[in-house]
């Protein structure tokens, strides 16, 4: 038996940062006891220490093996030639503690030791450092906290990936709770794009929830995205859809005029009639815009095409009233039928060369569709026909990026799926723009960084997707660091996410991932010589994550601290056999009432209308 129970063996081969170690003949496979604690020897993913004088090198075991031994040596080497492959990761010396990177390499014959719990605490430690935040504990050492550097976690972006049921949402909720702990981070701010409406309940006391059909009993607030906050291309996609080039040029001009007019009736600080463009977030009335375009292409006139103007429109008279339509209630005007005969009473068709009748029809139905009201009738942000709303966007930004609570949840579960991608693009872009331009203000992201959590990211950040969401998020992950806006990408299908976006995520929390393609994407995105560690991904337990990247000193296999039971996202698997809860298949069927089902469906709000009062 060796004098030091923690001795593993000696270095045989060094190639770059990869070291082969032969286990000493006296090292027993199984458990070694050091300082009263048991340590398993030769566990893939565990750490080893290579003392080199004043400096200790540290590495991770990536492979273990054994080879046959010739029979005449069986006495000397009863356990065979056993070896470990170790990836070196860093070093520590007394003065500086642990650092990534190596100043020297080991050589043959150097001794290799187990890493004991006090050593591990040194590796992961620094609980005293205020920028380090505990997210859980190291998987094989309960007393060693897993710490992440919040500076790097937020601004260098992160990704949380894992198969369904691996504990992703719970992990995200746990991270957000840790990050918004008022005692430590009183000014934390987080925006969550919650596609399924899972997080509202879990983060209730820390978050303001904005939802299209808010449940006011729960304190939810209405989500409004004023159309006039959008850039021209975004607006075009939301309103008319694709138009040909001449029509587009016309629409640009029309919109510009309307914004100019609005600006004249209500000047806005920061923008002048010289600087206003179609992209400037200046209010205008989309209803007026609709009516004008409608008249332009559909109206009949009492004048010939070359002499037509608004005065010459031949409105239909009903009961002595000209049917001029109504912009705000989206009532289309009616016109007299064109005639082909001569004479002074002849009615001419519109002379407009624009080919956008179909697109205007689309806009008509969108303006009438209550599902789009959050955008086209955005409460106090709805401009009147002259393009002057009651509130300006500062109020909106205060809700989103400056709310009273640290977390803002934009619950997108009631948004028509046809516009979800476009809408997320708009939300991310508006957030990014506000942080970008406010970079020198105390409200800006440089002074008060903002974390943007993107749930179910594969749904709108797909590979080769050049949609507005992908473009906006790419901008965040590429440039956000400079303006204090960090993204946290959450997905169960990392393989489907645009690799530019994934590779910009400095820190990856990888939960269990069984799919080989998904795994290879995560491994490819890891900028570390430790991608070997990710070989363990299929065998992680629920709630266990490997954290790699910039926010951790070392890749660490972590059991994430789960939030309290009543603060978990609403995404646990339904139980088919349920003997503890109220449901499941193993019960008699109580009377059913599908009127309630229809009620919640129509209201687009999952809260039962029967509930007596709010349960705590």
């Amino acid at each position, binding site marked *: 038996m060796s004098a030091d129970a923690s001795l593993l063996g000696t270095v045989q081969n060094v190639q770059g940062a990869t070291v082969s170690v032969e286990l000493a003949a006296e090292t027993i496979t199984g458990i070694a006891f050091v300082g009263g604690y048991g340590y398993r020897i030769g566990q893939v993913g565990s750490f080893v220490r290579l003392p080199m004088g004043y400096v200790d090198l540290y590495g991770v075991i990536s492979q273990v093996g054994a080879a046959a031994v010739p029979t005449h040596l069986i006495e000397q080497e009863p356990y065979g030639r056993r070896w470990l492959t170790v990836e070196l990761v860093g070093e520590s010396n007394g003065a500086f503690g642990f650092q990534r990177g190596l100043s020297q390499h080991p050589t043959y014959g150097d001794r290799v030791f187990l890493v004991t719990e006090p050593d591990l605490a040194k590796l992961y430690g620094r609980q005293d450092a205020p920028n380090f935040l505990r997210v859980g504990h190291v998987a094989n050492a309960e007393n060693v906290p897993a710490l992440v550097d919040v500076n790097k976690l937020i601004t260098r972006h992160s990704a949380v990936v894992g198969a369904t049921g691996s504990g992703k949402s719970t992990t995200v909720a746990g991270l957000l709770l840790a990050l918004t702990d008022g005692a430590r981070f009183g000014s934390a701010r987080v925006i969550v794009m919650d596609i399924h409406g899972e997080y509202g309940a879990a983060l209730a006391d820390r978050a303001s929830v904005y939802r299209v059909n808010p449940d006011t009993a729960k304190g939810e607030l209405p989500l409004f995205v004023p159309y006039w906050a959008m850039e021209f291309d975004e607006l075009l996609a939301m309103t008319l859809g694709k138009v040909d080039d001449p029509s587009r040029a016309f629409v640009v001009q029309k919109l510009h005029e309307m914004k100019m007019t609005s600006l004249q009736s209500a000047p806005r600080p920061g923008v002048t009639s010289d600087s206003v463009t179609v992209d400037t977030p200046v209010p205008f009335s989309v209803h007026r815009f609709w009516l004008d375009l409608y008249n332009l292409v559909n109206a009949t006139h009492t004048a010939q095409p070359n002499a037509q103007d608004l005065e010459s429109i031949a409105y239909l008279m009903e009961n002595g009233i000209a049917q001029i339509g109504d912009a705000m209630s989206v009532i289309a005007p009616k016109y007299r039928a064109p005639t082909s005969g001569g004479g002074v009473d002849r009615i001419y068709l519109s002379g407009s060369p624009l080919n956008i009748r179909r697109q205007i029809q689309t806009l008509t139905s969108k303006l009438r569709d209550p599902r789009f009201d959050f955008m086209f009738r955005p409460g106090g942000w709805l401009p009147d026909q002259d393009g002057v709303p009651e509130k300006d966007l500062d109020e909106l930004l205060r809700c989103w990026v400056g709310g009273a609570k640290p977390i803002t949840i934009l619950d997108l579960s009631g948004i028509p799926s046809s516009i979800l991608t476009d809408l997320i693009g708009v939300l991310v872009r508006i957030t990014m723009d506000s942080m970008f331009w406010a970079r020198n203000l105390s409200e800006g992201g440089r002074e008060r960084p903002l974390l943007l959590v993107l749930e179910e990211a594969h749904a709108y950040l797909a590979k080769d997707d050049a949609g507005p969401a992908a473009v906006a998020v790419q901008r965040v992950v590429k440039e956000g660091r400079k303006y204090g806006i960090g993204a946290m990408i959450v997905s169960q299908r990392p393989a489907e996410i645009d690799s530019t976006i994934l590779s910009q995520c400095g820190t990856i929390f990888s939960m269990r991932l069984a799919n080989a393609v998904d795994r290879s994407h995560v491994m490819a995105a890891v900028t570390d010589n430790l991608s070997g560690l990710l070989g363990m991904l299929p065998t992680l337990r629920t709630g266990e994550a490997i954290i790699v990247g910039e926010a951790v000193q070392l890749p660490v296999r972590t059991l994430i601290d789960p939030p*309290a*039971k*009543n603060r*978990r996202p609403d995404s646990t698997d339904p139980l088919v056999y349920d*003997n*503890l*809860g*109220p449901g499941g298949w193993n*019960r*008699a*069927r*109580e*009377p*059913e*009432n599908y009127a*309630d089902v229809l009620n919640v469906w129509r209201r687009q709000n999952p809260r*039962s209308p*029967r*509930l*007596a*009062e*709010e*349960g*705590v």
Partner: protein
Amino acid sequence: MDRVAVSSSSIASVGYDPETLTLEIEFSSGLIYQYFDVPEQVYNDLRNAGSPGGYLASNIKGVYRYARA
């Protein structure tokens, strides 16, 4: 609604609103459900049952409609 703790492996606490005949149960999972149109007697029986979980399974589950609060 005020709830009182009960000793059971599946139920943490129960409450009752006689106005609306609503029984509120906090399960040990932390989730809260409301059962509708439950007579007060059932609530009293549930509280006094030797095994509230067993009483729930035999007399409430499959009898009354409920919703998650």
